[in-house]
């Protein structure tokens, strides 16, 4: 809500300082406008502009300030004859501007008094002001402040500039406190912070004035208080200047006296009231549920179709007002109205919010009602309104009726100073606590505390503790260094995810892609209120990782290899199944992708000799046809997939790994193992075998040769040359072997013998041709 600084009865010395106090003790201030800071500046019209004889950049300007003419020396380049400008004569005070920084206004305001001065030999009895010197640099983006042509000259600028000090609070922070959406509410907070006296009289329900012309009825449990008064013989419809001035400053248009008063009271007291043309109300004002398909033309000229969940005020037959949200146009007060009905109520906040959102109407009234206005606040608002209307309209009160279902009492809370200290971590004495509570208008009797009647958010000791803590100052509460104890241990999964990230970022860019997607699949979870076509929750990261890799590869990034660790979802028997997935994309040769996989798994302490790839036929139903897909297996367990996809001549290798499987098969507690101190002998065997020979089988067969027992230093790796298939359905493979013994240096003949063993095994088992 916006508060005009001048209209606050209790405040600090500047809008900025006031905003600072509210932010640190009550509610965050989103915006502060300082308003005109300069003092004694008047308007003047430029009559003549002459070049300064001794300075290229200066001009001598003759200004008419009504009481006379001034010849002022100015550096402003854009002065022109006929402009009406802000003139600071001798004795006026303006903001001093450091033109190098050019932004002093929002920080500490420093005023300088204008003195007679001589500029390059010419005396200047004042200055022509820029917006920043007036304190208005946030309003106009021009150095020279120029007024409209019809502006009166020789008058203080405050009277012609509509820029006033303003504080705008953050409405998010007041979801529990409707009282902060009012001048009185903010003033009571400022009074507590500044330790100034402030009180509001406890409102009492006005006496009924029995008259068969007006009675009230409550026909729904959603309304707990309804008050209405009839004022006859209304004479005046025009608002007095103090009222229109208040509303103008708060950006509200004056409508007519009665309506203006309700708007004024909403802002001042924080409780909306409503006035009807009494003729339209009839004898009984009813609060009831709307009937099915009941319509109302509202004050904004729109027709709303009401639902039985909405509360309305009106007659049995006709709804006159959507309760707590917006009034009807038909029953509004106009300049010919002689009798008005003033009404005020308390509604179930959830119901008001529901209606307001359903109709898409947010008003000053609904914003307050949905925060939960109280019984006392209603009576207070009503009384204030009624008094003003009677005083200003010349009308007379002829009927007043009230209905209330259980009277809300102000909660009484046990005063528990020890618990308050325990919550805050302070050791305030009882009297220190009481003193703060009294500043906030709490009342104490024996060990019971009663919050002020306008604070229906205070219900338990924790609420009281917050009030004490924030007025004492969160900044003043000391910090403790605590080590936190646990009855539980973390899971290994988070550690695995963390290690996986660190293993992968050595080679790949880490990326984050959206969870909501446009691609549908079997078992997809669908968003009920999507933005655009992002209607589903992803089941796989493959699409987005591939898309990202492709996009940035096309952007000229030579090798944009990336990965993401994220969660995927699908529905299974109406249960949401959530999985962590690792998905990466490597551009180029699949062998590079496979070595990346190997590196990552190796860093996670997964035994890579147990990893093998098996070709995976693609189902015809797959939406995207990939060039090749393989299963990644740990022994016989599937732990992921490798996909090769060719897009416009570039090969993209995508691999995904099931994080839960990695967590299961990794060695969480790796231990040192001693290693051979003897040298290693490397040999290659190049063979040609049939296309259908499985490389993993070859590898396994070699490793299982008994003669090689304990003599292979690592699992054999292989290089494949494809393309021979067009010759004879064959492929050329080079097998890289490294031999090492734990006990001795291997001799050449020993190694040659081993190679022969392998050769003959390959010939026998795989019909291999040795090259």
């Amino acid at each position, binding site marked *: 809500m916006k508060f005009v600084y001048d209209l606050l009865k209790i405040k600090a010395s500047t809008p900025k300082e006031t905003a600072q106090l509210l932010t*640190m*003790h*009550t509610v965050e201030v*989103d*915006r502060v406008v300082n308003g005109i800071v300069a003092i004694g500046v008047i308007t003047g019209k430029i009559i003549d502009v002459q070049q300064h004889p001794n300075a290229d950049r200066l001009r001598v300007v003759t200004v008419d300030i009504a009481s006379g003419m001034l010849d002022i020396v100015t550096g402003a380049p854009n002065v022109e004859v006929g402009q009406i400008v802000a003139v600071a004569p001798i004795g006026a005070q303006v903001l001093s501007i450091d033109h190098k920084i050019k932004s002093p206004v929002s*920080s500490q305001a420093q005023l300088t008094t204008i003195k007679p001065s001589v500029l390059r030999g010419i005396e200047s009895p004042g200055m022509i002001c820029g917006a920043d010197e007036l304190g208005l640099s946030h309003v106009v983006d021009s150095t020279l402040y120029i007024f409209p042509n019809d502006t009166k000259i020789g008058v203080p600028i405050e009277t012609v500039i509509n820029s006033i000090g303003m504080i705008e609070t953050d409405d*998010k922070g007041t*979801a529990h*406190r409707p009282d902060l959406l009012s001048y009185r509410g903010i003033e009571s907070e400022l009074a507590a912070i500044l330790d100034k006296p402030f009180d509001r009289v406890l409102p009492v329900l006005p006496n009924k004035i029995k008259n068969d012309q007006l009675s009230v009825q409550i026909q729904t449990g959603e309304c707990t208080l309804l008050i209405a008064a009839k004022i006859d013989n209304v004479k005046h419809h025009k608002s007095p200047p103090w009222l229109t001035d208040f509303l103008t400053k708060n950006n509200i248009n004056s409508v007519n006296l009665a309506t203006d008063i309700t708007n004024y009271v909403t802002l001042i007291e924080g409780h909306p009231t409503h006035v009807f043309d009494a003729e339209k109300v009839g004898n009984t004002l009813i609060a009831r549920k709307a009937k099915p398909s009941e319509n109302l033309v509202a004050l904004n000229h729109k027709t709303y179709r009401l639902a039985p969940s909405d509360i309305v005020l009106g007659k049995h037959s006709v709804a006159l007002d959507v309760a707590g949200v917006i009034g009807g146009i038909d029953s509004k007060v106009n300049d010919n109205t002689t009798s008005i009905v003033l009404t005020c109520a308390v509604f179930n*906040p959830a119901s008001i919010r529901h209606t307001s959102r359903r109709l898409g109407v947010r008003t000053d009234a609904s914003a307050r009602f949905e*925060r939960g206005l109280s019984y006392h606040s209603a009576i207070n608002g009503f009384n204030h309104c009624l008094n003003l209307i009677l005083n200003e309209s010349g009308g007379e009160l002829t009927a007043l009726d009230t209905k209330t279902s259980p009277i809300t009492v102000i909660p009484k809370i046990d005063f528990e100073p020890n618990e308050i200290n*325990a*919550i805050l*971590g302070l050791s305030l004495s009882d009297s220190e606590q009481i003193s703060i509570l009294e500043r906030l208008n709490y009342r104490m009797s024996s060990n019971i505390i009663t919050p002020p009647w306008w604070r229906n958010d205070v219900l338990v000791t924790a609420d009281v503790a*917050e009030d004490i803590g*924030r007025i004492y100052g*969160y*900044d003043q*509460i000391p*910090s*403790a260094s*605590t*080590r*936190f*104890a*646990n*009855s*539980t*241990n*973390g*899971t290994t999964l*988070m550690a695995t995810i*963390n290690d996986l*990230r660190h293993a992968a970022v*050595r080679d*790949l*860019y*880490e*990326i*984050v892609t959206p*969870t*909501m997607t446009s691609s549908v699949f079997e078992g997809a*979870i669908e*968003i*009920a209120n999507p*933005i655009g076509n992002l209607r589903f*929750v992803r089941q796989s990261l493959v699409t987005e990782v591939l898309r990202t890799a492709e996009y*940035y590869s096309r952007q000229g990034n030579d090798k*944009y290899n990336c990965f993401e*660790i*994220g969660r995927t979802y699908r529905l299974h028997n109406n249960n949401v199944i*959530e999985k962590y997935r690792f998905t990466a994309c490597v551009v180029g040769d699949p*062998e590079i992708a496979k070595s990346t996989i190997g590196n990552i798994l190796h860093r996670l302490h997964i035994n890579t000799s147990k990893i093998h790839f098996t070709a995976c036929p693609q189902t015809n139903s797959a939406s995207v046809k990939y060039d090749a897909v393989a299963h990644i297996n740990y022994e016989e367990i599937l732990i992921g997939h490798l996909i090769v996809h060719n897009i416009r001549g570039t090969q993209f290798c995508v691999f995904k790994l099931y994080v839960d499987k990695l967590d299961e098969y990794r060695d969480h507690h790796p231990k040192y193992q001693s290693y051979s101190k003897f040298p290693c002998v490397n040999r290659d065997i190049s063979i040609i075998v049939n296309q259908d020979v499985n490389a993993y089988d070859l590898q396994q067969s070699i490793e299982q040769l008994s003669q090689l027992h304990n003599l292979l230093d690592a699992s054999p790796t292989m*290089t494949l*040359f*494809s*393309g*021979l298939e067009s*010759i004879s359905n064959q492929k050329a493979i*080079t097998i890289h072997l490294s031999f090492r013994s734990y006990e001795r240096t291997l001799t050449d003949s020993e190694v040659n013998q081993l190679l022969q063993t392998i050769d003959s095994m390959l010939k026998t088992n795989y019909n291999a041709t040795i090259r």
Partner: protein
Amino acid sequence: MISIKFLNDLISQTQSRIDNGEDINVLHQEILGRKGLLAHALKDLPKLSELEKRTVGAKVNQIKTQLIKMLPVINPEHQNIIDLTFPMRISPHGHEHPIEYLISKLYQIFNNQGFVDYISPEIETEKSNFDALRVPADHPARDMQDTFWTKNKMVMRTHTTAFQHTVLTKLVPPFAVTQGGKIFRAEAEDATHLSEFHQFDFFAVAENLSFKDLKGLLMHIVKQIIGDDCLIRFRPSYFPFVEPGAELDIQCSHCQGVGCKSCGQKGWIEILGCGMTHPEILSSHGLDAKRYFGIAGGIGIERLAMAKYAVDDIREFTKNDPRFLEQIV
């Protein structure tokens, strides 16, 4: 038969092996050597007719010339020429995403303070996300968070705080747990808003925990993350699940507190909301709220990252542009 396709593939495969850093001399031997792959592929050449030889031969020669150019036999004398004055090449690979980096760093820092990770789902029940946290239907606090609902009446969690309900159901105090990850809000995207972003929550329940412990913890965490010299502001705020409630702001690093576009002219950037767990939340989960106290808070990761790295548009975090990623972590 001689396969031209095989020969063409041989060139591309050789190139990728060179790119992989394999030894040129070894490759030369393997491909161009007497028993090399090229010789093997061309073993049928003599069988061709003269006419075939002329057409195929020209192609073969061209490929052979190319391979020789790719695999020059390096003269051992020339190998000794070393020039260290060439500009360095920086490998572009392997950068952490700033968001995941910060989450992982927060886990670490909180872990050092005794917190453990508690994984909880991103798709939650309405009860976990709202009702158990004192945010009933049609409560204005739900306005703070425009919610994505799934068709099976689940909630795309609007805050990581949603894990509190599960934690209170499964764990017995004392405990201190954290949860970081994606959250969702049905909002239009702009320079300061995303519909998918990240949060990191902490939650501890024990006897003798107070606002003082909360403040101390957060001062420590923020200084660890942002740096010792950052200016911190701790001010009252409202969240239905805490009482007293607070928000922590750090001074905007773009404008040093003067006010700019990034901080909405405030000079400060809100990075986390926190407070003492509302006693009703403890008691509604069967804990004695006079004996146990909870501290809780949620850190907005994108906001934190924007403040820490002076990023002025939140959408940068969704683009995954290498020029962005390489600048940060």
